[in-house]
């Protein structure tokens, strides 16, 4: 009896295996197709970190989707980065504080709802309310009533549900009252967090998250969370930046190397994250299909000014000396193959000279001069404790390599073997926690990817006293005053001049060392043309043409 049972058991395993393989040959041909047929462009993607709400997305991968499916009041020109009105007919103010926004006629969400004043006011109220815990809520902090809907004390409840500074006047007009003067406020509105939301978002939030509805040139066809998203051209879209292809298929890649292999094999059309190890080959592999373009990202080393060993005017020479001991030219060439450019100020060339970029501001401070560096450091009493530790996360961006190189450069300048050592942190999450806890006793990496292409965004969030990304706790009354004056200026040009004046203070105080501007890198297959990156180093998908 036992024997029989056993025999049937084995037979069962065999038939299960056969069934399994048989099933495979049936369903096999469906999945093997390459990047979508016809005019669809397949593009590299990563799993978004947060739910895809506009005000809850602060990283590139979620941002890619929002740029395809939403349009805000303002848009930044994908080539020149200049802000211009998109859905806004006009954004006017007499005193830089009370703004009247008029929305253009004729724009609709992909579900047919019209985009009107209410779509913006509702969306912004949702974003600012602490109950909805949106990571970008601080973008709304200048609007009056923000402190009521978003109290800062931990655990406190909002005393109002809506921003008192927002008022719908009529169907197409709304007014915004800011809590302080802010001359360039309209220019900040191109950030995706300011996108309008349809009523459907509030009626059935879960359904919206499963398949977000926006008002952009594309609409979402299907979304398999964690693996892929198919977007199709919205034929009813009325903007002048209509899609030149039939759709985009975003495919999640866990390993950049795989994406690169897929690109070479022709299964992927656009890859915007080439592996660092392949940069040297990418140009010869891809030829003119390799894109190396300036982008709004700057990498700096921030000094822990909360630590007495580093702060104060008497240590300025020490901070300056370390900066001058770094051979930026060599490092960007050797490690990054010229996909990084030695920094010459604290902003980015992508914002242009009109926007406040000025390659003379850093001057000597950013120029490699080992002899002078040693003199400055020795004159300031040497490195604190004779040692220098540089910290960064090392899970992405070849951070380990450049840290080693920077340390080598400093050690060479000082003529000491182990004066500078690196402190690699395994994950970005751990690194950020330590930064926020102020636990670093030496310089640490501070990267900044702009939210909007304005000089304000490079200075105010990172160097204003108590600002959200001022991780080194730099504080200079004069700097703060200049930023305040710039915000209250009569027009953008006057504001930019003031910001630049503030930036010159950074060159004097050296709260951080500008290292290099990070370029946007991408490659594309020979199936598509007209691929370029926008100022945020994201491929500008609507213009891509399929051969």
């Amino acid at each position, binding site marked *: 009896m036992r024997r029989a049972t*056993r025999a049937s058991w084995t037979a069962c395993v065999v038939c299960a*295996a056969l069934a*399994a*393989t048989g*099933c*495979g*040959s049936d*369903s*096999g041909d*469906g*999945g*093997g197709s*390459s990047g979508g047929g016809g005019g669809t462009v397949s593009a590299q993607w990563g*799993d978004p*970190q*947060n*739910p895809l709400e506009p005000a809850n997305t*602060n*990283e590139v991968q979620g941002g890619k989707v929002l740029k395809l499916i939403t349009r805000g009041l303002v848009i930044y020109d994908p080539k020149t980065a200049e802000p211009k009105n998109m859905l806004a007919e006009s954004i006017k103010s007499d005193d830089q504080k009370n703004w009247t926004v008029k929305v253009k006629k004729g724009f609709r969400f992909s579900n047919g709802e019209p985009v009107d004043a209410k779509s913006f006011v509702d969306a912004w109220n949702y974003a600012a309310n*602490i*109950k909805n*815990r*949106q*990571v970008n809520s*601080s973008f709304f902090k200048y609007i009056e009533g923000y402190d009521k809907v*978003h109290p*800062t*004390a*931990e*655990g*406190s409840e909002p005393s109002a549900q809506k921003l008192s500074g927002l008022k719908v006047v009529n169907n197409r007009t709304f007014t915004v009252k800011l809590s302080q003067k802010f001359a360039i406020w309209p220019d900040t509105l191109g950030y995706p967090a300011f996108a309008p939301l349809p009523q459907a978002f509030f009626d059935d939030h879960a359904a919206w*998250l499963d398949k977000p509805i926006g008002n952009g040139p594309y609409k979402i066809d299907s979304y398999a*969370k*964690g693996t892929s998203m198919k977007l199709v051209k919205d034929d009813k879209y009325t903007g002048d930046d209509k899609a030149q292809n039939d759709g985009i298929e975003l*495919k*999640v*890649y*866990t*390993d950049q*190397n*795989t994406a690169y*292999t*897929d690109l*070479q*094999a022709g*299964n*992927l059309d656009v890859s915007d994250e080439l592996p660092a190890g392949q940069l040297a080959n990418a140009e010869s592999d891809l030829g003119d299909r390799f894109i190396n373009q300036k982008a709004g990202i700057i990498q700096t080393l921030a000094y822990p000014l909360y630590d007495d060993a580093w702060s104060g005017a008497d240590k300025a020479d020490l901070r300056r000396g370390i900066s001058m001991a770094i051979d930026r030219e060599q490092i960007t060439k050797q490690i990054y193959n010229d996909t990084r450019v030695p920094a010459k100020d604290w902003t980015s060339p992508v914002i242009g000279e009109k926007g406040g970029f000025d390659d003379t501001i850093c001057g000597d401070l950013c120029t490699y001069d080992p002899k002078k560096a040693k003199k400055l450091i020795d004159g300031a009493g040497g490195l604190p404790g004779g040692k220098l530790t540089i910290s960064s996360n090392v899970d992405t961006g070849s951070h380990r390599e450049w840290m080693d190189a920077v340390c080598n450069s400093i050690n060479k300048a000082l003529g000491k073997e182990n004066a500078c050592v690196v402190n690699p942190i395994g994950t970005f*999450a*751990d690194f*950020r*926690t330590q*930064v*926020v806890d102020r636990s670093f006793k030496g310089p640490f990496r501070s*990267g*900044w*990817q702009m939210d909007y292409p304005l000089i304000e965004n490079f200075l105010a*969030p990172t160097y204003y006293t108590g600002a*959200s*990304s001022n*991780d080194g706790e730099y504080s200079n009354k004069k700097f703060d005053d200049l930023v305040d004056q710039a915000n209250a200026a009569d027009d953008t040009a006057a504001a930019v001049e003031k910001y630049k004046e503030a930036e010159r203070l950074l060159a004097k105080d050296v709260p951080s060392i500008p290292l290099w501007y990070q370029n946007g890198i991408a490659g594309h297959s020979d199936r598509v043309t007209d691929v370029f990156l926008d100022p945020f180093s994201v491929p500008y998908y609507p213009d891509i043409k399929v051969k």
Partner: protein
Amino acid sequence: MGRYVIRRLLQMIPVFIGTTFLIFFMVYALGDPVTAMFGDRAPDPATAAQIRRDLNLDKPLWQQYVLYMGNIFTGDFGQAFNGQPVLDLMRSAWPITVRLALLAVLFEMIIGVTLGVISGLRRGRAVDTGVLFATLVVISIPTFVTGYVLQYLLGVKWGWVTPAVSSGAPWDELILPAVVLALVSLAYTTRLTRTSVAENARADYVRTAVAKGLPRRRITVRHLLRNSLIPVVTFLGIDIGNLMGGAIVTERIFNIQGVGYQLWQGVLRQNAPTVVGFVTVLVIVYLLANLVVDVLYAVLDPRIRYA
């Protein structure tokens, strides 16, 4: 036999609770996940506090664990930080990894055991030396090397297969990744089988069977192989767990969005619900695989009995 299985199943409960607590503790020890959600910007304390409250991160560790386990027993594995229920992630990831592991185990069993028997029976001859050498080569090359090389050759250079597996991960696209995944274990299976077969081939009962005049085929399959398979079965059983949890390298190379991918993502983002959920299921798979191995012993060797 039935009582033995029940006893083993009951023993799994404390093991299960202990391992989940350890994993929970380790993920917790990685640090605070909330700051990373804000990127390079410092979180504003109110929003961060709200997020912590919603995710129960403001409570002490033991309380978080109790809450988490309580939810698990109602079938709720929590949510990843991007709002996807972990159960949904499992539903999409597990079938893919199970398919991959099944294919790999099939390769190991069919090719590994066959090669092992052949070289075991031809001990010391050219075939044996050849197989020995081949397995040595395979064992000494790390998985990611074979993975990238085969992917480049077959996928890019010759264009026989697509280098990356598409999102549905159909069986035929998984063949190459399964081969890569199976290679090292396959070599071990071959060597284990070979040693075992070579040893048993000189045993008394085989000589008796030959003396009885049994056909050669029957001697090899019924007598020799069955007795030689016990170490191999042990290895394969444990290997199933390894293949599922350890497929992380292979899954990354071929862009398979399975268990390894979810675990890796979860660890990077310090997403406790994802990591603990997936590892919990992995623990169960290991425990069950071990039980199946032990039961198979009795099937293969009638002398082994469980009461």
